[in-house]
């Protein structure tokens, strides 16, 4: 049976209607759907190897487009975090015991393993609101507020951006700032920097005389240029400056103090009737200011249907960390409502000047700053992933992406003492990122 579904009967139907209604011609219909809300929802499963951090996250972004391109965006994120990151202490050839941050009990790590406090549970809720609107024909502005809360952390932030078009919208200059004020309420109080890990206590207020909280402020400035290179090629260049000040330490991170010859953790005599750390370790300390500069350039290139998205970022800061990031995606359409998007990302960074894998118990005074947090070390990371997107029957967009992210550290031999040389001193990590997202609405 020939397919009559695709034939247009509009002309015949219009003629028959005009005859029926006795009119010669009908004015063409003028109807347009009022843009309503459109929604972008996603479920993320992030899990690191050997049961370190796991995050199950639900994100929604609701956008309401008002007449003349004025847009309100409301964001909500709920993260359920379990598992924990290494606390900075080094694995030893013997078991080690540590006091938990709450100061109420201890946990023991078997030999050869990175000490991890797995009692870590956290639920994080983040909300954001953002208003975007053109100002006249050449300017556009964007203002937003954000807030997020965890059991030990509260973030409040504002941001604003102004952009202006030049030479027929081929060049757009934009400038923006973001200011955040965060407050930390660590479990067991704020540890005094570079002091020894405490024994278990049973005093009532739980903080053992420590300050209960501390705060930090972050100011971000971004200057950007978006430049149309050709009909298929668009580029963006951003310079951003970020200045943080206040309590920048991680309250739960420590450094193992080792014997200057053997490189092994120094045991701590345990007074009978008390419980506490089995070996010598100190809480970390970082400078209370940090200023970062970064240059970012991104290009989008259209190759009859396929879109290449490549970006490079260079960052340097006054903690002597330099980093390079290369990120590439290629969107490969399949038919007219599906696509595949492979993703490749390379990242490398140098260590912070005060990063060290351990302290040395040689009677000398402790350094002013020291941290064994693996995120401040010299390491490389690679992300490889694939995203598949498709249009649903109702014309909405769905997508699924699966990515592997792996970090590997490079600790310079000069830092290694005694037995550390033939031991694992950097907690390499692999993680999977699985995200399903569904865009529907208007």
């Amino acid at each position, binding site marked *: 049976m020939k397919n009559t579904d695709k034939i247009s009967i509009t002309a015949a139907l219009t003629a028959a209607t005009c005859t029926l209604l006795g009119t010669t011609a009908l004015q063409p219909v*003028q*109807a347009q759907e009022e843009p309503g809300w459109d929604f972008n929802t996603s479920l993320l499963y992030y899990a690191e190897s050997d049961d370190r951090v796991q995050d199950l996250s639900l994100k929604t972004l609701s956008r309401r487009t008002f007449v003349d391109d004025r847009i309100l965006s409301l964001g909500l994120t709920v993260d359920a975090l379990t598992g924990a990151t290494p606390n900075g202490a080094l694995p030893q050839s013997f078991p080690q015991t540590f006091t938990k941050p709450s100061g109420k009990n201890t946990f023991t790590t078997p030999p050869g393993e990175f000490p991890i406090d797995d009692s870590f549970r956290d639920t994080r809720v983040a909300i954001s609101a953002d208003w975007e609107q053109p100002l006249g024909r050449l300017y556009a502005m964007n203002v937003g507020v954000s807030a997020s809360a965890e059991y030990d952390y509260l973030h409040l932030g504002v941001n604003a951006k102004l952009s202006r078009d030049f030479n027929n919208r081929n060049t757009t200059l934009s400038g923006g700032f973001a200011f955040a004020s965060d407050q930390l309420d660590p479990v067991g109080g704020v540890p005094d920097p570079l002091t020894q890990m405490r024994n278990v206590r049973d005093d009532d207020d739980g903080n053992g005389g420590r300050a209960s909280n501390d705060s930090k402020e972050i100011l971000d400035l971004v200057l950007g240029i978006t430049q149309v290179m050709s009909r298929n090629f668009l580029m963006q260049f951003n310079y951003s400056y970020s200045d943080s000040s206040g309590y920048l330490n991680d309250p739960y991170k420590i450094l193992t103090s080792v014997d200057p010859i053997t490189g092994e953790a120094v045991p701590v005599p345990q007074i009978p009737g008390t419980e506490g750390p089995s070996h010598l370790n100190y809480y970390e300390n970082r400078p209370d200011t940090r200023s970062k500069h970064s240059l970012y350039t991104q290009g989008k290139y259209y190759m009859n249907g396929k879109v290449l998205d490549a970006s490079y970022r260079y960052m340097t800061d006054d903690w002597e960390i330099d980093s390079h990031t290369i990120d590439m995606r290629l969107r490969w359409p399949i038919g007219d409502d599906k696509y595949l998007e492979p993703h490749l990302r390379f990242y490398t960074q140098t260590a912070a000047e005060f990063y060290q894998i351990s302290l040395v118990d040689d009677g000398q005074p402790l350094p002013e700053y020291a941290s064994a947090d693996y995120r401040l070390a010299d390491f490389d990371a690679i992300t490889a992933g694939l995203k598949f997107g498709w249009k649903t029957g109702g014309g909405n967009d769905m997508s699924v992406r699966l990515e592997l992210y792996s970090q590997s550290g490079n600790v310079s031999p000069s830092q290694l003492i005694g037995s550390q040389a033939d031991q694992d001193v950097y907690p390499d990590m692999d993680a999977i990122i699985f995200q399903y997202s569904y865009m529907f609405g208007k």
Partner: protein
Amino acid sequence: MSRVRPDRSIRVDAGDRCLRGQFSAMASPCEVLVDSDDIVAAERLTSLVADEAWRIEDKFSRYSPGNIIDRINTAGGEGVQVDDETAQLIDFSVTLNELSDGRFDITSGVLRRVWRFDGSNNIPTRHAVSDVMKHIGWHRVDWTSPILAMAPGMEIDLGGIGKEYAVDRCAGLLRNTTDAACLINFGGDLVATGKPRLRDAWQVGIEALNAQEQKSDRLVNLVIGGLATSGDARRFLMHNGIRFSHILDPTTGWPVPDAPRSITVAADSCTQAGMLSTLGMLKGAQAEAFLDAQGVQFWCNRGDGAVP
């Protein structure tokens, strides 16, 4: 069944930045929105529209004994002479019958003798359906205008065209009598004659019943033209897990498989919008492809919560 005298009163009150005349006709709540603050004129226009709607209802409704439809359906095979308006409606339905390969057929009303869409699971037997099919099919009708003759047992029903036709007829009347922009809405089938002065457009909600049967209204800004919806998410049958929509294919006598729950179309007139939405429903799974080819704006709700 004694016919309760229908309430034929009209009421005019203040609508949203316009005057709103209300009455009921064709078993639907009807309203006329007039973009003016002259209450006397609004009353006159509302009664003008209401009288026309009631005239068409009395003339073509299946429930009014003695009207032209009743005389045709009880002629027992004799030829019946029809007036010009009826002839035009019949000619229009013949065109629709051709354009839809026989799926739009005004003789298919008798299928209701075997199909009752009450959400239950009583499906007629194959035998019962084929029995009633003997009385269906425009090809069985002898129509040489203005005489129409049908075998006994056959019936015609203009319900599929009547409401939209009435809306457009009333719009024509209003265009000739007032410059004020008006919106005529007969139970969801509507037409707008022009842009209201104080607003960009008339705001009309499309009832998109999604899976959880909550209404999620999507708004359309209508300036000129018609909007019609066909399909009723509440009328269906469930039989061993399969949902049978109430849209029956006159060429088979069985419900159209994979018919959407409802379709709303925007077109130059309410009649065109109504016909395209009905033909869309009859296309079942191909509804979207068919309506895309017609180059009209439409909203097809398949009840999966996602309406394009």
